[in-house]
C-alpha cells in the first residue's frame, strides 16, 4: 500500500540515498573491542602498525557496543559466553554486521569433538554471520580480506564501492 503512494521519482531518490548510506557504511566499519581467544591477538595485529585497519576507516575500535557497527567474533565461543555475545549483539544498533574469524568461530574448529561439553560449535548458531574468515588463526591479511569482502557485501558488489581505489596484489619482500 505504502509502496504505491511513493512516486517513481521519489523511489529513485530513496534508492540513491540508500546507496550513499551503504557506501558510507561500508567504508566506515567500526569494530567492537572484543576478543575471545587466539584470533583476538591476530585481530589486534591487524589493527596494529604492520597491517593498519585504519586505512579502510575500520581502525576505530569502539569499546561500547552502542557505537560499533561490526562484531568480530574472534575465538572459541564457550557455552558460558554465548548468552553474553547475544546480548552484546542485541545492544548494537542496526545496521550491524558480524564476522566469524577463525575456525573456532566458524564451526568450533579443532575443539569440536565427541564429548565436548563447553563450546558452541559455530557462531552461526547464535548470530547471523555475514563473512567467514577461516584459518587457525587467520593471518591479518585474511582478516583484511574479510573486511573487504564485507564491504563488497554492504555495497552489493565491489564495483559499486566507488570510494575504493586500489588494485590487488603487488608482491613486496619483507
Amino acid at each position, binding site marked *: 500500500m505504502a509502496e504505491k503512494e511513493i512516486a517513481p521519482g521519489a523511489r529513485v531518490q530513496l534508492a540513491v540515498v540508500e546507496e550513499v548510506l551503504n557506501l558510507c557504511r561500508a567504508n566506515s566499519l567500526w569494530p567492537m573491542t572484543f576478543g575471545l581467544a587466539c584470533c583476538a591477538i591476530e585481530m589486534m595485529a591487524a589493527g596494529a602498525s604492520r597491517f593498519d585497519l585504519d586505512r579502510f576507516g575500520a581502525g576505530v575500535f569502539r569499546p561500547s557496543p552502542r557505537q560499533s557497527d561490526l562484531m568480530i567474533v574472534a575465538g572459541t565461543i564457550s557455552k558460558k559466553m554465548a548468552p553474553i555475545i547475544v546480548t552484546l549483539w542485541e545492544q548494537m544498533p542496526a545496521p550491524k554486521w558480524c564476522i566469524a574469524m577463525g575456525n573456532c568461530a566458524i564451526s568450533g574448529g579443532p575443539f569440536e569433538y565427541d*564429548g565436548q561439553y*563447553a563450546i558452541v560449535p559455530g557462531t552461526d548458531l547464535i548470530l547471523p554471520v555475514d563473512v567467514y574468515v577461516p584459518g587457525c588463526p587467520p593471518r591479518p591479511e585474511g582478516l583484511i580480506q574479510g573486511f573487504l569482502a564485507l564491504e563488497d557485501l554492504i555495497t552489493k558488489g565491489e564495483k559499486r564501492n566507488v570510494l575504493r581505489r586500489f588494485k590487488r596484489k603487488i608482491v613486496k619482500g619483507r
Partner: protein
Amino acid sequence: MSLEDLKEKLSKVVEPGDMVPRDYEKDGCLLEIKARADQVEAVAKAAREADCFLESITAVDFTNGPQIIYQFNSCTIVSRVLVRVQLSRGESVVSIGSIYDAALWYEREVFELFGIRFDNHPDLRRLLLPEDADFYPLLKDYGKVHAFRSTEEIYGE
C-alpha cells in the same frame, strides 16, 4: 628448606610406608605420599610449614573411584611432592583452602569436573562451566573416551 626437612615433617603425619620415593629424572617428582582422606589437612599443614607452595590439585577417575592428586613444591630447592588420595565413589575430602588460598579455585575446579565434594569449602560453586551445568565432564563415563581403568592397571600394585 630441604626435602629432608619436609620428609621429617611429613613423617609425623603419615606412616613411613606410605611415603614412596620417586625417580625425579624420570617422573619429575621426588616423593609420593599415599594419604587417606582424613590426613589431607595435616599433610597440607606440614607442607606449608616446610615453606612449600601448592602447585596444583587435580583428580583422575578410575573404576575404583576417583583419586585426588595434590602437588607441592618449594620455591627454593626443587622438592616436588605428590600426594595421592584414593577416594571411593561419593566420598568427600576436607578442603585445604584455609591453609592454601590457591586451593580454593583448584578445589572448585575438581568439584565441577569430577563431582568430588570438599567439606568446609566456603564457596563451592561452579568455576569454569556455566552455573547451571549439571554434569561432571571429566568423569570417564561422560562422552567418548578410550579407556576406563582401575588404579592397579596403571600403577601396577
